[in-house]
């Protein structure tokens, strides 16, 4: 595709980004500009919010690093029964909605949680619930990135180092670690971004004392109507996340290396030490990534029939219908935008980098900016679906871009020489081959849309409650019955997430290039 055609195709997603992301960010700047830029730092309360947001992100990075690297090394180097199943399951937290994760953490560690029922202490204050929730989401990301990176380490370089006298431990630090470090750094960027700009987990698990900036922005807008102060905070966070996003993009670009053909072959663990290492890795994953999800199901099953009756309430059915139709509309729009963006970005690294922006910008800042810029459209379906699509379409674009990269360029050229016009090449060759990538991207987009929470809180009408807002509504009401109802609804959300997960995994299996 010629460069000019690329930009023409890119005009649609770029215009969309301009209207729904750049313009609202500028509007935030205008609103926040009414106050001195240093306002959030002069107020001790707001300064604590910023410092805590950054600190919890940093602590999560350290935690995922310490736990994730050894787990990834074990998964990359040892072959054992169930290994590929574990690798598949690592994708699960990517599709679990924030609120479901928060419910899982509460069901496991909170008051009347599984741990308390087993004789342990419940955690209902302090930063630990939020930090655990962050680990749940991000450990899998780091493990996946590092496992892939360890898989790229050259076996011949390791062999050369060993013959030159290096012990396995020295080989790790002098050969494997330098190869993995850039991947790890890029994963750390993402972890920091997700934690610093996260909303759902912090809202439910942070409480009054450990709420993050995103929660504070929501409180200032929704409860205190302090728009200028909220905008100033949002601007700081936007600046921070955009800076980190640029850093991540630069790092990620350098990592697009082809798979090495001389990767280190995996071997069956030998001896008690190696089996203990495998067991420890699996325990870490089970405790951090699987336990909260199991706890939700366990607690929901313990809840009485009355709690399960919530599934048939008119409000729930309406919320389910809203979640499904918003998701359907958003995925449709996201697919068109993602397809245009991916096709246009084939030859432009700038366009390719731009697709990351909606992924790393805080949904709260996006929703608040939209609220300020288009007050007449708030509670309009078009704006709501547009905002959903903004957060979902990068998944489609990224998946398709990877699919296009994997597609041999010769196929299109041969099809042209056999008489197919560019449109016919797209229809008969490109699109059929992209189908698994498209399905995968759409499933991620659907998982994002169905679990969307922040945007819905800002832009929705009361009658447009979705499953996530309904979970939050029940969670905010006092009493065990309401908590149980929230757990049951979280199970329903989790089932939808699992559906998306199944589609993603089946798309992986049906890759025609495989």
């Amino acid at each position: 595709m010629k460069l000019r055609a690329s930009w023409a195709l890119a005009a649609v997603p770029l215009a969309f980004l301009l209207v729904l992301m750049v313009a609202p960010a500028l509007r935030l700047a205008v609103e926040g500009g009414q106050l001195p830029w240093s306002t959030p730092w002069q107020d001790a309360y707001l300064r604590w919010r910023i410092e805590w947001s950054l600190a919890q992100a940093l602590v999560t990075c350290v935690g995922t690093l310490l736990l994730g690297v050894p787990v990834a090394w074990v998964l990359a180097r040892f072959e054992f029964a169930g290994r590929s199943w574990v690798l598949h399951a690592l994708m699960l937290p990517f599709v679990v909605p924030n609120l479901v994760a928060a419910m899982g953490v509460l069901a496991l560690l909170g008051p009347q949680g599984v741990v308390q029922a087993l004789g342990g202490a419940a955690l209902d204050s302090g930063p630990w619930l939020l930090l655990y929730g962050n680990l749940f989401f991000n450990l899998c990301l780091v493990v996946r990135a590092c496992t892939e990176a360890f898989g790229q380490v050259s076996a011949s370089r390791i062999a050369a180092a060993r013959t030159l006298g290096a012990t396995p431990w020295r080989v790790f630090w002098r050969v494997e670690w330098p190869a993995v470090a850039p991947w790890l750094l890029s994963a750390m960027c993402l972890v920091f971004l997700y934690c610093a700009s996260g909303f759902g987990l912090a809202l439910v698990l942070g409480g009054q004392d450990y709420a993050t900036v995103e929660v504070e922005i929501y409180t200032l807008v929704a409860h205190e109507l302090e728009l200028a102060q909220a905008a100033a905070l949002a601007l700081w966070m936007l600046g921070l996340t955009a800076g980190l996003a640029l850093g991540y993009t630069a790092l990620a670009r350098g990592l697009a290396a082809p798979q090495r053909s001389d990767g280190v072959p995996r071997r069956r663990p030998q001896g008690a030490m190696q089996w203990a290492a495998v067991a420890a890795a699996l325990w870490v994953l089970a405790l951090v990534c699987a336990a909260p999800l199991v706890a939700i199901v366990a607690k929901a099953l313990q809840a009485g029939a009355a709690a399960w009756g919530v599934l048939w309430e008119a409000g729930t059915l309406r919320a389910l219908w809203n979640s499904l139709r918003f998701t359907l509309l958003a995925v449709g729009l996201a697919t068109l935008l993602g397809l245009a963006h991916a096709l246009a970005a084939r030859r432009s690294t700038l366009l390719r980098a731009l697709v990351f922006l909606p992924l790393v910008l805080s949904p709260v800042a996006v929703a608040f900016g939209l609220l300020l810029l288009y007050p007449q459209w708030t509670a309009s379906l078009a704006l709501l679906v547009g905002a959903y699509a903004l957060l979902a379409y990068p998944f489609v674009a990224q998946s398709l871009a990877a699919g296009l990269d994997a597609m041999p360029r010769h196929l299109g050229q041969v099809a042209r020489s056999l008489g197919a016009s560019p449109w016919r090449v797209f229809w008969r060759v490109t699109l059929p081959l992209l189908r698994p990538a498209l399905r995968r991207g759409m499933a991620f987009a659907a998982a994002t849309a169905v679990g969307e929470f922040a945007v819905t809180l800002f832009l929705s009408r009361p009658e447009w409650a979705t499953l996530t807002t309904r979970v939050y509504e029940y969670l905010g009401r006092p009493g065990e019955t309401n908590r149980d109802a929230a757990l049951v609804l979280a199970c329903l959300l989790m089932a939808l997430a699992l559906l998306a997960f199944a589609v993603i995994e089946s798309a992986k299996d049906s890759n025609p290039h495989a």
Partner: protein
Amino acid sequence: MLELHNLSKTWQGRALLRDVNLHVARGETVAILGPSGSGKSTLLKMVAGLESLDAGRVCFDGQDITALAPERRHFALMFQDFALFPHLDVQDNVAFGLVEQGLRKAEARVQACAMLERFGLHALAHARVMRLSGGEQQRVALARALITEPRVLLLDEPFSALDAALRLQLRDEFRQRIADVGMATLLVTHDEAEARAMAARGYAVEQGGLRLLW
């Protein structure tokens, strides 16, 4: 007759091809030799219309086709990786070009089956192309290229992905089949022995131009 007049191409500020002139008659096979990066594959893509020209003209039977889209030139191109469509079975791969010419799919499949029979590949008509051996893939790619009866056949290192014994066997088979059809054929390769076995004339790409070898 295929005629190239003063074809030139600059790539990343370097003159890749300069004033390339070449004539290939019907039924004739001409080989272009050169090391990797010499521009021989680019030349082939320029002839196919897949790569733009900085200067020069591509003509066929006296008609200037430089501005003609690749799909309207009625040339067929074969790559070293065969470029078979992985989402289609063998029969539909071979029928691809016929469908693009406007034939109904059912009719195209009948013709594809007949073609596969001639190539001894009839039993593989419904096989997935990725399950075929290298030699089988190569034959399918040739059948797909020849079924539309192209005016020119463009071969880009067609045997380099095969082992030595299969390469020799297929080389003779290809030469025979191309001679049967009698079209102008342009072969690009870095293997001089292969070029001499296949082509009546051979040129080397040197400093962007063509030098006659035989």
